[in-house]
């Protein structure tokens, strides 16, 4: 049932996503009646499809009721979304639910050796975690794209009746190693602010160049009394140390603080428009994005700028609706008293502003996100600076998780009554922090894909395509495309090509973000990424040097994917190659991106401002990843030395049945309703790896073994019907286990798993074809799909004992009496050699067990290596 329920929910999801893509962004109205109508429509369409193809009526009703209940819950819960978003979200949850159950039952009940089981379960957990992360992105995207009622969306406070509220504002500007021109542009833009009551405190954070320091000091003097310059020497605590001192040196009457990055050119209306927000004493901070319109059509700056727009256009608007805005990037205004109340900026955390925002919300304040740019960033770092920036952000994100995980738990309010976070806020911050792990999953995906490609070079083995190797890559490809090409475009109003470039620019930084996540989890204090040094003039060399790891990974993926397809062309390797090429393109974009950014290097940041702490080299920080990869390889190889299960165990009967074949799903193959739930089409008990084929076949050479174990170990060969349905003939032995085993039948899965070539049936030249079969003895190659007749006595399956050495005829025990249509396994006629005039001769009974495919040693090793992954998908 679970398999069919999963397929049905996937069908519903596909229908709802189709509707979402077509109209989801356009419908800006809604009504519960419309929502329920669309929900019922989707369910009925899916039911009709299932009824015509693979569905069983009872199950359909049950699962449909479940879907309806889930949908109604979402309609009531997310009543600010349109009907398409509600239904898509409900069906996503339902599909994930069924998939987790399905995946777990397969993982738990596939016959494996203990080590393989442990690894399989580990990958199951990882797979579930990866999919839950996908759901968080999906939620955010739906929340902004299909929302029809915005509770907290504010564009400006200019028309607010409290616009005359003009408290003193202190603007803190930190200047590090920025070029003087960009710092000067920032300061001059602040001098033009249209606001009556503000002061600018310029902090020189360790500018090494004395002349530049003097120039900035002079400029501050020129700009008037509102500007103060301060040089801080040997100041600890990264940027937050200096910001804390700036807080101590803020004019006492100032009520609001603005943190401005050197390089941001602030628009004159900034304070005039946004300060009125603080008329509400509960508002602690206001966050705004940066303007990126200036960089359109620039080959480097445009994707670099748009790459971070997903955060501003999708994440923050969604979080703003739940009062869970992350104070990060862009421009921000902060209530001074709130900042003093939380103790200022955290000097341990690299992303001190996000951390402070969380602490302010924990004290019950509100944060606002105004999706209106009030500054443009004049300085975008080159790729080295970009990597440092992402490293710092991801590292800081991990630090926040480490520091505040307890405050984000459901019981946090009970432990600390001062923690005023609501459950929604906790969830938003928790998922926001965990979303950095997406980059680790991206890396895992490419690792599995690479391994699959390498293994397929040595043997025509597509089995490694199963497991997270197939589910997660495809889901992640779809996710990233959906995030940027649909969700971002729905908000950012950028072209398809720009969105694609934004996707590439961000995803090409996956490696750096993954490194930062791992480092952030293990390092006791903040570290910065140290990029390799390159000669100033060597533009191309420097560009490639900065993106060396991405280049290596991308090339490896590209070569492995192409080789895998060339060596073993086929559908499976085609999918594998396509996924690898996609991943390779993401990573190979990094050197291209770097090269495009290279001309701007001399004018922009090649370092990262404020990074004065301990630094770590990229290669050194990657050693953990390489170490984990090698460990995974070793453990996988170690499985080879552990004995597999000696017989198909009884728990294997809990595996879910085989998914319907594609022909059945599209209606090309009709199966009567009353036969769809027939367990005879179930895969049976199978050891899901190539090496197990021999194991499964082994009992055929031991006909004298009698009893349940031997019976369980016996396998029958599936017979392909013309329609393509693999039907397992009834076993020729009395089987006390729940379901008959099938050696070469897949144990399930949405893609055809690896099926080794069947043993070559030896046809003696003297054997005539079955030209005249008796009417009562239909050929076994063409049985009814779900009701196979018993094999004729003259057509024994390969599990029968050799005719030359027939076992003594024994009566089966009463409890194991087979159905009358099945010949008893030990009946003497079944052991007779086939008549020459009958149906095709089976393999010689005396021949050894079915030979493995070409390259048997490698194949077995490969299969065993992939053992942990295989059951997850089936």
């Amino acid at each position, binding site marked *: 049932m679970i398999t069919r329920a999963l397929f049905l929910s996937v069908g519903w999801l596909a229908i709802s996503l189709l509707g979402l893509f077509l109209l989801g962004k356009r419908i800006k109205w809604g009504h519960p009646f419309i929502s329920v109508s669309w929900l019922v429509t989707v369910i009925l369409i899916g039911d009709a499809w299932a009824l015509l193809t693979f569905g069983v009526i009872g199950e359909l009703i049950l699962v449909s009721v479940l879907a309806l209940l889930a949908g109604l819950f979402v309609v009531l819960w997310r009543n600010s979304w349109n009907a398409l978003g509600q239904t898509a979200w409900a069906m996503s949850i339902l599909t994930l639910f069924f998939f987790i159950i399905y995946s777990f039952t397969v993982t*738990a009940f596939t*016959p*494996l*050796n*203990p080590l393989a*089981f*442990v690894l399989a*379960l*580990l990958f199951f*957990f*990882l797979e579930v975690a990866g999919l839950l992360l996908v759901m968080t992105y999906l939620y955010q995207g739906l929340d902004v794209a299909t929302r029809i009622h915005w509770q907290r969306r504010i564009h400006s406070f200019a028309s607010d009746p409290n616009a005359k509220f003009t408290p003193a504002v202190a603007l803190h500007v930190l200047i590090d190693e920025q070029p003087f021109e960009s710092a000067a542009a920032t300061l001059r833009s602040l001098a033009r602010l249209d606001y009556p009551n503000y002061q600018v405190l310029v902090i020189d954070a360790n500018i090494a160049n004395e002349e530049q320091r003097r120039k900035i*000091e002079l400029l501050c003097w020129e700009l008037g009394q509102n500007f*103060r*310059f*301060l*040089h*801080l*020497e*040997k*100041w*600890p605590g990264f940027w937050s*140390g200096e910001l*804390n*001192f700036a*807080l*101590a*040196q803020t*004019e*006492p*009457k100032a009520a609001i603080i603005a943190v401005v990055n050197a390089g941001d050119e602030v628009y004159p209306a900034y304070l005039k428009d946004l300060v009125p927000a603080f008329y509400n004493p509960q508002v602690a901070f206001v966050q705004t994005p940066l303007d990126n319109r200036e960089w359109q059509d620039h080959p480097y700056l445009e994707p670099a700028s748009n790459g971070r727009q997903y955060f501003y256009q999708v994440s923050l608007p969604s979080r703003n609706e739940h009062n869970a805005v992350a104070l990060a990037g862009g421009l921000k205004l902060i209530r001074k008293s709130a*900042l*003093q*109340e*939380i*103790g*200022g900026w*955290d000097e*341990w955390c690299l992303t001190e502003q996000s951390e402070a925002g969380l602490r302010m919300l924990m004290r019950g304040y509100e944060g606002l996100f105004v999706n209106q740019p009030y500054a443009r960033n004049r300085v975008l770092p080159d790729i080295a600076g970009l990597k440092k920036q992402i490293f710092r952000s991801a590292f800081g994100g991990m630090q926040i998780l480490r*520091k505040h995980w*307890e405050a984000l738990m459901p*019981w946090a309010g*009970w*432990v*600390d009554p001062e923690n005023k976070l609501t459950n929604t806020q906790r969830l938003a911050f928790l998922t926001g922090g965990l979303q950095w792990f997406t980059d680790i999953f991206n890396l895992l995906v490419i690792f599995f894909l690479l391994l699959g490609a390498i293994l397929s070079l040595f043997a025509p083995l597509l089995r490694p395509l199963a497991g997270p190797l197939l589910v997660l890559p495809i889901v992640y490809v779809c996710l990233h495309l959906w995030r940027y090409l649909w969700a971002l475009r729905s908000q950012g109003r950028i072209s398809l090509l720009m969105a694609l470039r934004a996707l590439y620019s961000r995803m090409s930084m996956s490696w750096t973000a993954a490194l930062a996540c791992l480092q952030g989890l293990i390092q006791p204090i903040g570290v910065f990424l140290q990029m390799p040094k390159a000669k100033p003039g060597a533009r191309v060399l420097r560009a490639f040097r900065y993106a060396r790891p991405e280049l290596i990974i991308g090339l490896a993926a590209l070569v492995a994917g192409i080789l895998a397809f060339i060596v073993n062309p086929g559908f499976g390797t085609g999918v594998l190659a396509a996924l690898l090429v996609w991943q390779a393109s993401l990573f190979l974009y990094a050197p291209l991106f770097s090269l495009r950014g290279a001309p701007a290097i001399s004018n922009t940041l090649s370092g990262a401002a404020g990074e004065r702490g301990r630094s770590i080299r990229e290669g050194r920080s990657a050693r953990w990843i390489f170490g984990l990869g090698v460990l995974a390889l070793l453990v996988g190889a170690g499985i080879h030395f552990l004995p597999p*299960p000696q017989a198909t*165990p009884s*728990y294997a009967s809990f595996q879910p049945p085989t998914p319907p074949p594609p022909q059945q799903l599209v209606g090309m193959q009709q199966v009567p309703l009353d036969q769809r739930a027939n367990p005879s089409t179930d895969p049976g008990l199978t050891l899901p790896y190539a090496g197990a084929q021999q194991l499964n076949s082994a009992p055929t050479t031991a006909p004298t073994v009698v009893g349940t174990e031997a019976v369980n170990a016996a396998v029958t060969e599936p017979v392909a019907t013309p329609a393509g349905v693999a039907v397992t003939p009834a076993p020729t032995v009395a089987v006390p286990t729940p379901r008959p085993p099938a050696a070469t039948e897949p144990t399930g899965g949405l893609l055809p798993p690896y099926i080794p070539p069947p043993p070559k049936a030896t046809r003696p030249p003297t054997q005539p074809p079955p030209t005249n079969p008796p009417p009562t003895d239909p050929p076994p190659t063409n049985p009814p799909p779900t009701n196979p007749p018993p094999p004729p006595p003259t057509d024994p399956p390969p599990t029968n004992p050799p005719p030359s050495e027939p076992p003594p005829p024994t009566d089966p025990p009463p409890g194991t009496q087979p159905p009358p249509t099945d010949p008893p396994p030990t009946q003497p006629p079944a052991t007779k050699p086939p008549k020459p005039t009958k149906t095709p001769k089976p393999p010689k009974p005396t021949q050894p067990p079915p030979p493995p495919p070409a390259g048997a040693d490698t194949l077995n090793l490969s299969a065993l290596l992939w053992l942990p992954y295989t059951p997850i998908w089936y």
Partner: protein
Amino acid sequence: MNPPSGNSNHTPHTGYLLDEANRRYAAGEDQEAYQLCLEAILADPLNVQAWRLRAELAPSAEERLMSLTQVQTLDKKDPTAELESYQLLRDLLAQDPYLEYVGETDQQYRVRDRSGEMLLVPKNRRITETFPADRPLALRRANRFFRWAILGSLFAGLGAVVFAPLAAIMAYTALRTPLNVKDHKRALIIMSLSTGLLMLALPFVFLLFIHI
């Protein structure tokens, strides 16, 4: 200078010294008033009025700043001290905007200007808990075992079976020691979650067992 702690030990002698200092100050005898003020501070270092008078009488801006900082530290609700110290430092830095970090306490920064004069600058913000937080040893161990139990539960629940009981035992040990309310609740939570995690892990271990 470390911030004074505890309550002011206001004595009649201190009161007499301060009255006398104020009288001399009003009479224009600043030097004598300053000496009396110093004696009053020696007698009662936590006396806000003495520090305030010293800020007015101090011969140098640095000393004035230091005195105002002490006033702010002792009387956080005094708005004039904050404003005065801010303006004083602003005037100082207008001449040479150079400050070198020397050290800090929870209440104030210790910085040095270019001439080497030590300055105290009040922080004007709440003291926060540092990370990692200082918790009782048993609770720290319970936390650590609990983290290992979560991580280990990914491996067919084996890690949870090993570490969750240890975490629960450590949490129970912590509960038997004097704890503040928050830590007491934390210990209870760890104990409950460890037990729950163990229960959750047992089916996975059973599955592993049947695979052996």
